[in-house]
């Protein structure tokens, strides 16, 4: 039987309270005053003075009507839940991810410890509903984008590694049939507090110039009781860790679909690939040679919309771009104020200051386009055009900000003592990759 709301809240509180990370990240700040309760959309902060009243209110006010009333006005403020998730993850990002980023880039590996800490925070659990062991009733696209942004503010490569399984959970929640959710989503969430958590990844990109996700070479052909999968995928995050994959492929009638593929199946070979950036994401190339898939490998039913799947992939990358651009902005503002030349900080020169101003203007542009598309998605409004335009803008501006970040540091930007060269390499991925989902 599914847990009721109080049950969900209690299990979330329990999980949180038990995690040493809560102390480490000062999330217990101060523990007596704040209790974390997870309800419909995620964390909720409640001051102890009014805990009981507030809890009762939260459990008995239908959140839907509340959201809709607020949605009537143009409003750029985050909900309390979103703000709290953002704050917590920002702290995780600055205290855990950022300090590990240089080494992870060097090792081409996100450490076990970081995966574990993300699991302790229950990252993937916010992508699943209570029925499947998760924390949320309704998946929130905007919250998912905010999560991507916060993590990428620490490091885009590590963010990619962490979001890989989360993305699969998001995709299963949105598109999966009941049986698929039970078979694939529940085990992911259940495994979060196990010693060996499950990993999963989405495979979209293929090794071809001008790659177009609407024209895939990877394909399926029907067989007795299933499908035969052939083709090649590239840049699959944590591809060699993944216990299973969501693979995009063309069907015989020329349509694009997703298939759930157990990575232990015969005919699959997975090789690490070495890329310009996103090294901590452990990107892999995967060959599929006559891989026999069962009939229920096809993700979802008639409601599956490949275009929407791609739109949500694009929004994930937009979220990453915004987070990394913010990291670059913060870094160059500091640097330009501290670095002196000709007897004063270089930020006193307009040629420098205007580059910083334009980073600020275009970053805010990226953020607003991304948030609007995510909000429309969440509100159930058509959002294809908005997601498309967000991707167009973020693709261009992410790289512009990446290259100007290095430029502003001059020679220092080119050497690995500073993170801007890594951000430069990471930002090149925004216009290219697809394998995530919010």
């Amino acid at each position, binding site marked *: 039987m599914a847990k009721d709301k109080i049950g969900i809240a209690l299990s979330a509180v329990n999980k949180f309270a038990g995690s040493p990370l809560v102390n480490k990240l000062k999330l217990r700040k101060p523990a007596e005053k704040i209790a974390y309760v997870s309800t419909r959309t995620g964390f909720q902060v409640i001051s102890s003075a009014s805990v009981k009243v507030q809890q009762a209110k939260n459990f008995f006010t239908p959140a839907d009507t509340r959201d809709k009333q607020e949605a009537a006005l143009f409003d750029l403020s985050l909900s309390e839940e979103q703000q709290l998730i953002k704050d917590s993850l920002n702290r995780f990002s600055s205290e855990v991810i950022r300090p590990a980023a240089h080494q992870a880039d060097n090792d081409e590996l996100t450490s076990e410890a970081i995966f574990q800490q993300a699991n302790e925070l229950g990252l993937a659990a916010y992508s699943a509903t209570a029925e499947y062991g998760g924390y949320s009733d309704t998946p929130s696209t905007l919250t998912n984008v905010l999560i991507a942004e916060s993590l990428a503010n620490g490091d885009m490569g590590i963010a990619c590694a962490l979001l890989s399984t989360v993305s699969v959970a998001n995709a299963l929640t949105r598109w999966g049939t009941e049986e698929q959710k039970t078979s694939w989503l529940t085990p992911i969430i259940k495994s979060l507090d196990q010693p060996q958590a499950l990993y999963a990844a989405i495979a979209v990109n293929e090794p071809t110039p001008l790659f177009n996700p609407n024209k895939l070479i990877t394909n399926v052909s029907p067989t007795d009781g299933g499908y035969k999968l052939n083709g090649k995928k590239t840049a699959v995050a944590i591809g060699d860790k993944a216990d299973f994959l969501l693979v995009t492929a063309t069907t015989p009638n020329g349509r694009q679909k997703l298939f759930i593929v157990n990575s232990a199946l015969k005919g699959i070979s997975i090789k690490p690939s070495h890329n310009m950036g996103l090294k901590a994401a452990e990107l892999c190339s995967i060959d599929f040679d006559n891989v026999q898939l069962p009939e229920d490998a096809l993700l979802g039913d008639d409601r599956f919309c490949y275009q929407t799947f791609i739109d949500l992939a694009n929004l994930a990358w937009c979220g990453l771009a915004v987070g990394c651009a913010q990291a670059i902005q913060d870094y160059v503002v500091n640097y330009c104020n501290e670095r002196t030349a000709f007897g004063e900080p270089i930020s006193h020169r307009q040629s420098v200051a205007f580059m910083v*101003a334009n980073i600020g203007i275009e970053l805010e*542009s990226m953020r607003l386009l991304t948030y609007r598309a995510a909000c429309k998605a969440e509100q159930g409004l058509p959002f*294809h055009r908005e997601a498309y335009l967000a991707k167009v803008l973020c693709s261009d501006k992410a790289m512009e900000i990446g290259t100007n970040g290095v430029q502003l540091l001059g020679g220092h930007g080119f050497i690995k003592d500073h993170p801007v060269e890594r951000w430069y390499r990471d930002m090149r991925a925004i216009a290219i990759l697809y394998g995530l989902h919010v």
Partner: protein
Amino acid sequence: MNFEIPKKFNALINQAHQVATEVFRPISRKYDVAEHEYPVELDMLASIMDGMNDGDLSGGAGAAKLKQDKNDSDTAGVKNGSNMATVLGLTELCWGDVGLALSLPRQGLGNAAIAAVANKEQLERYKNTWAAMAITEPDAGSDSASITTTATLDGDEYIINGEKIFITAGGRCEAIVVWATLNKSLGRAAIKSFVIEKGTPGMELVRLDKKLGIKASDTATIRFDNCRIPKENLLGNSEIDTQKGFGGVMQTFDNTRPVVAAMAVGLARASIELTQSLLKSSGIALEYAAPVNNSLACEAEMYRMEADLEAARLLTLKAAWMADNGLPNSKEASMAKAKAGRTANQITLKCAELCSTLGYDQSQLLEKWARDSKILDIFEGTQQIQQLIVARRMLNKSSSELK
């Protein structure tokens, strides 16, 4: 979070759009060709506009309603008020014609200045006055702190002396809000704004400028030679507070920059829409399907322009939303103006290019829009001034450090 325009603005947007379509567009070319001719069609319209602005919307719209909302304790929660209404209205009007929108009686920038700094009595006194704004001088443009026009107190009157240029609607307005210094040695803190009514002795309309675009709007040079005005015409506080610096007078800009950004958004949208329909008649329809690099070059251009326009629009709405909710928005207002100004200029020029001679000859309005757009990246602070303001805020620098 919600980025969609609330339904309560539908009526206002629709009215403004009707004005743009039915009044502005049909006479757009006429007054572009006949520069300096008075658009008589606008007189009737102005009364309708007054009605619209005083209508049942929360706070109304228009230049005279622009104001930084101080957070009233009695109205909890988020507000979408007069700043947003004005931004939305002007976007539609400028989709019709920027020059004509600037010529609307009683919608001048001077009215925005009055709204921003005037006291209650002055607000009442100038309620129905069409006021233009006079800041720029022959030797002081972006560096508005170095203006030389003086205001000298003599009994109950100020005596104004100096010359002002680039006064939008300076020929047609009923009064001019003039920036002048009470004491040049005290720097920017001594700069105050004064309302000078047309016909005041000593005030002379020197000339009207011929321009690249927005020809329907008159741009005047006015000279003040021992021009005497009652001392009650000083807007706001007459004290010179060197701590507060520019204080009041600069506040105007935080409220008017999003409006100019909105004008740019409207103009750019007009250009994109017309270009899209012309492209469509040549068999090119935008489907937002293939990745941008798999599209035709002209499609890719259109997608990039649309993305930039959407960014300009959202930055503008954000700045207006902040003003409505009493949040300091100086950085955001300048971000919006910088992005919208340059984007509108780039878009209108590119659209003219994409449409070939249809974009260059007068058969369409594309060439006119490409001329009109340039001013939007110049007035109310040039692109460079906006970047300077944004940079100072981001880098936490004063104007003496980051010059």
